[in-house]
């Protein structure tokens, strides 16, 4: 039954392929959305069933068949549902379904409508396989599958060369990450003799000595994979370019689901990471650095989708450093809430773009609040949520992360997180004011076509908005009886739900539980983070509410230039990696293949030719010379016998 969840989208892909155009637009839409909805229902049912199981034994397993068995290496295609993957599967299918619905409206008049949903369903299959995998190899299948789908979807509008290049960049950078993931898997197998989660995590404490090279290498390799997929510091450059794809794609893949795969993997291997303190520290540092770094770039972007892209990178940074400080639960919680409001932001931006028939530059927007009421409403909710204003979802998850960071003594990380929060609030509201408030800078014909998005697009927006508001309460510390919100102790509902997986208070995992803060510090932290958010919003409104220009550009042109050009990271990567490799290839081909190897071979041929030319000289044609050599030979022969 568990295997059905990924199988449904795959079946939809197959049907889509077989029936082809006979399916028609309506048919494709129903098929695609129906399949995803069905897997959502299935997922919900199995999660409910899972909840009914006693806390200790909350796992559902579905072994399908043995994929490979060579010598002592055995791996099966198998699926596992446990609290951690249940959260993921619900998010993926839920948000996924909403985005499918939205796409029906968004892509309504696109030529290759069917092909779009073909890829979307393929993506859902890959993502669900990744999330529900029971061993690393099946996860890797999903891992690369989503990489492929993101490549196809980014390059969906094929005739735009920039889209094709962005697609390729995404796939290659992901592939570098996958290389790391692969190495991590190989180390795990070499040491624990299996790739199955359960066996690996059981054998790990016995096989690996905490902090030794082996486990650090394995976890760092896995981390490289995670940074590749979740666009963290070294390998994040592909995500902003991935905005070339249609907006629903950005929403689904580059906000809600795929990019969170890295965080999920780190959370899944929390036992390994806690055994390698150095790696855990790296996760925290990378997370914090990315959070801050991406936030700064986000401030200076003019393309509405690029702002959101950098915002995603930054929020992922938060999730990473949540795991880095040991608060895996908080990380997953933020992952869930982020999925809601980030998807909402992207879809909202999508409906804005849809309304302005393709315009993405914020400098050509403004004053849309009145014209696009629904979009404006949901976007406002999303901005407030992401900024972290209570009672919205963003506040709860981000606050938990910051307090965990503070509690576990990572003060540097906490400060970075706080600064990030300020910047997040700032650029989100900059986006809000530039798009919805102020004077309308629309071009005439954009003005002319301006229309609110159809119902099929607005409905998912509203649902997501609701989730963004309600989502936070999952984290509230409900006691069994649901008593008033008095103390933050007792752990949030989600924490307790994830406890069996993360071992807080559950199994004797080696992971150090995050120490509980005293009551007063808890509240103090909440106040500080809310203040930070409010400060960010204030700064943004002062700068952008009324004035049309770009205040930062006037005050600090050089800084603004730096940020706008994304610190020239892309150009840096290009010069240190892409160009030298291509040059190396050229040198190897031109010099080594053509000169050296072929040179030697042709050289041998030339020597033979030269030798034969020399010998031809002796063929003078005069009988006399031949006779001379003949007798010379005879004389030599006789001499030989004389001497012997």
């Amino acid at each position, binding site marked *: 039954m568990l295997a059905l969840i990924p199988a449904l989208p795959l079946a939809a892909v197959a049907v889509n392929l077989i029936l082809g155009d006979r399916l028609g637009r309506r048919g494709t839409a129903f098929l695609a959305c129906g399949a995803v909805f069905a897997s959502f229902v299935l997922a919900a049912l199995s999660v409910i069933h899972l909840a009914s199981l006693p806390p200790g034994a909350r796992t559902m397993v579905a072994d399908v068949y043995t994929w490979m068995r060579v010598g002592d290496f055995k791996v099966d295609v198998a699926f596992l549902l446990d609290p951690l993957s249940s959260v993921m599967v619900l998010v993926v299918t839920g948000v996924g379904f909403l985005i499918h619905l939205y796409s029906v409206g968004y892509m309504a008049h696109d030529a290759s409508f069917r092909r779009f949903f073909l890829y979307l369903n393929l993506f859902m299959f890959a993502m669900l396989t990744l999330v529900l995998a029971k061993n690393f190899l099946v996860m890797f299948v999903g891992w690369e599958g989503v990489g492929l789908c993101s490549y196809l979807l980014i390059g969906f509008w094929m005739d735009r060369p920039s889209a094709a290049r962005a697609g390729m960049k995404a796939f290659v950078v992901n592939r570098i990450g996958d290389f790391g993931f692969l190495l991590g898997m190989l180390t795990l197998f070499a040491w624990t003799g299996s790739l199955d989660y359960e066996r690996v995590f059981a054998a790990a404490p016995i096989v690996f000595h905490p902090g030794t090279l082996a486990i650090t290498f394995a976890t760092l390799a896995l981390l490289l994979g995670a940074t590749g997929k979740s666009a963290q510091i070294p390998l994040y450059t592909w995500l902003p370019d991935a905005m070339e794809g249609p907006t629903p794609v950005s929403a689904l893949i580059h906000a809600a689901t795929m990019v969170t795969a890295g965080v999920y993997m780190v959370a899944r291997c929390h036992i390994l990471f806690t055994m390698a303190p150095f790696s855990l520290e790296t996760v925290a540092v990378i997370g914090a650095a990315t959070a801050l770094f991406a936030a700064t770039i986000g401030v200076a972007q003019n393309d509405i989708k690029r702002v959101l892209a950098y915002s995603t990178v930054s929020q992922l940074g938060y999730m990473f450093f949540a795991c880095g400080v040991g608060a895996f639960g908080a990380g997953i919680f933020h992952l869930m809430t982020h999925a809601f409001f980030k998807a909402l932001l992207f879809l909202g931006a999508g409906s804005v773009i849809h309304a302005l028939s393709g315009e993405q530059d914020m400098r050509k927007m403004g004053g849309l609040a009145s014209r696009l009421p629904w979009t404006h409403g949901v976007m406002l909710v999303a901005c407030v949520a992401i900024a972290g204003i209570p009672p919205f979802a963003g506040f709860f998850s981000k606050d938990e992360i910051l307090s965990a960071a503070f509690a576990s003594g990572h003060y540097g990380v906490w400060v970075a997180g706080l600064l990030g929060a300020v910047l997040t609030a700032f650029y989100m509201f900059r986006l809000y004011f530039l798009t919805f408030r102020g004077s309308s800078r629309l071009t005439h014909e954009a003005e002319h076509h301006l229309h609110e998005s159809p119902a099929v697009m607005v409905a998912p927006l509203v649902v997501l908005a609701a989730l963004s508001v309600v989502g936070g309460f999952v984290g509230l510390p409900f006691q069994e009886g649901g008593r008033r919100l008095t103390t933050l102790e007792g752990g949030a509902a989600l924490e307790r739900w994830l406890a069996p997986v993360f071992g807080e208070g559950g199994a004797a995992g080696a992971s150090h539980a995050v120490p509980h803060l005293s009551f007063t510090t808890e509240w103090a932290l909440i106040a500080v983070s809310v203040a930070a958010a409010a400060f960010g919003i204030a700064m943004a409104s002062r700068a952008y509410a009324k004035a049309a220009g770009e205040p930062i550009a006037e005050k600090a042109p050089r800084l603004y230039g730096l940020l706008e050009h994304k610190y020239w990271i892309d150009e840096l990567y290009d010069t240190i990696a892409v160009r030298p490799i291509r040059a190396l290839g050229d040198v190897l081909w031109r010099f080594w293949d053509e000169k050296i190897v072929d040179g030697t071979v042709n050289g041998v041929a030339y020597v033979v030719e030269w030798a034969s030319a020399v010998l031809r000289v002796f063929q*003078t*044609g*005069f*009988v*006399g010379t031949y*006779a001379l050599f003949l007798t010379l030979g005879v004389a030599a022969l006789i001499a030989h016998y004389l001497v012997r």
Partner: protein
Amino acid sequence: MMHDIPLAWMLALSATVFVIGVVGVLVRRNALVIFMSIELMLNAGNLAFVAFSRALGSLDGQVFVFFVMTVAAAEVAVGLAIIVNVFRLKETIYVDEINLLKG
């Protein structure tokens, strides 16, 4: 006859004549003279044959000389025909002026 000539002397004579024939072939430019030197070499061979046949008391040597002669005759016939033709073609029978088979 009293006692015969020792074999070694005969062979020495045959060798000398053979060498003279070789020198003739190498030195002379006239194809015909070369031809004659070849005849000399052949006859040196015959002499050795007869000497051995005499020494070993078997007639095979002499029979062989007989065959050598037939071959020599055939060779001369064809050789001279060729020389005549070459003369017609090139007006010369000097060996170092004929290089039709140049490689």
